[in-house]
């Protein structure tokens, strides 16, 4: 794609600004800020990736993955505001999910430990884990607040905090995993996901593209499950005192 065509395609943003203005949605400023941020972020990341790919250094690659995890953890933690240490719990959970999945993919020979492969794959799984773990803590927080009576009933019968919040933990984990499971169900029919689309646009044979997409789907499912499970189990403890009393 030439730079000129890219500039011309940016005019499409004007459509959303026009709709916002015409319908008085009041999001023109947001659209402009979003566009500028997207352009700046992608340009900077493009150059950084260019450098890391050509350096082909294990530490640079890992550093990039760690930065992604921290940024994702910080963003998802906003959903769990009010839960002490939630940033750490989410970051650890995303890192845990990503580490297991990446190790498995490398061991299975699906990808190689090269920045060109590890970084884009990490980006996808970390992004997905960010959304799902954010949903998990948000739901956990709401349920703990709305189901106090139920929790106190369990506690009164001699349940410990884990037993008393078992159902809520399950609901929170399910909530986090649902979007990934739902998108799996319609994959290829309703949506041609980003990676597959990108590969096809880049001239890769659709059969090969779908193999990659399948791998992406599997890895997202595992990372999401691990991250949601881990963040729910770490965070629920913060709603109780060590004496199994609801805070």
């Amino acid at each position, binding site marked *: 794609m030439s730079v000129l065509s890219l500039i011309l395609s940016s005019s499409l943003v004007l459509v959303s600004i026009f709709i916002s203005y015409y319908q008085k949605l009041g999001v023109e400023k947001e659209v402009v800020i979003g566009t500028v941020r997207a352009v700046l972020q992608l340009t900077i990341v493009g150059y950084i990736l260019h450098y890391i790919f050509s350096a082909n250094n294990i530490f640079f690659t890992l550093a990039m993955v760690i930065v992604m995890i921290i940024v994702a953890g910080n963003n998802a933690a906003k959903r769990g505001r009010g839960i002490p240490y939630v940033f750490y719990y989410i970051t650890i959970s995303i890192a845990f999910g990503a580490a297991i999945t990446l190790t498995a993919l490398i061991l299975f020979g699906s990808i190689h430990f090269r920045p060109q492969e590890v970084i884009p794959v990490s980006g996808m799984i970390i992004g997905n884990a960010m959304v799902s773990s954010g949903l998990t803590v948000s739901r956990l927080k709401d349920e703990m607040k709305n189901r106090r*009576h*139920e929790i*106190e*009933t369990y*506690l*009164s*019968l*001699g*349940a*410990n905090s884990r*037993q008393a919040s078992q159902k809520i933990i399950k609901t929170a984990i399910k909530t986090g995993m649902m979007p990934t499971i739902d998108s799996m169900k319609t994959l290829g029919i309703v949506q041609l996901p980003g990676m597959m689309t990108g590969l096809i646009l880049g001239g890769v044979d659709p059969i090969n593209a779908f193999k990659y997409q399948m791998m992406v789907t599997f890895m997202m499912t595992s990372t999401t499950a691990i991250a949601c499970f881990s963040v729910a189990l770490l965070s629920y403890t913060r709603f109780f*005192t060590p*004496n*199994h*009393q*609801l805070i």
Partner: protein
Amino acid sequence: MKEIKFINVGFSDSDDVILEDITLEIYMGHIYTIIGPSGAGKSTLIKLINRLIDATEGKILIDGNDIKNYDIIQLRRKIGMVFQQPYLFEGTVEDNIKYGPMLKGKRDVDVEYYLKIVGLDKSYSKKKVDDLSGGEAQRISIARTLANEPEVLLLDEPTSALDPASTQVIEELVIDLKNKLNLTFIWITHNMEQAKRVGDYTIFINKGRLVEYGETRNFFLNPKFDVTKLFIDGKLTKEEAE
């Protein structure tokens, strides 16, 4: 267990003082009713007994030992609690009654016995909890608490959401349980007539303080303070209660 003693007990959350300087003795084998205006701190008081919350001031002793020295899970089994709106777990009546013993690792529970205690026949065992009436649900929640073999039951307005017939059933059941099993009940109620009918002793709380308590008949016949008399007569103004 012989007695529960409150010594200058207080409870405050981050903003408010909910209970202040409560000194009280509860002896086993009786029904104690707690009365007082809404927001007086009655529910907070009973939650201190099974340590759903901890006192921020003073001490609660069970047979002379600080309540904090008891294993909290064991304590909650010995001091059961029944709420105004019973929350029954999804599934059957049997699942609910077996829950407490199951937590202790006990699988063999005589569900029929507990159903009988609360005046229900064994056919209820397999019923789904969604098919129960309000009165039946409350009786099941009492049966579920009894399956833990408690010595004390804390009742937080167990009949306030029930019709008069179901209320009468619960009142008779509690009196019966006290007499037959020598259980102790600490019962929050808004209903003065109910306090007179069921309570051996009555405790009056207002604005987080214990105003007076005593043997029920005497309490209602000769209240020591004007505020108690006003409350009994339903004439306590909002200002005097808040």
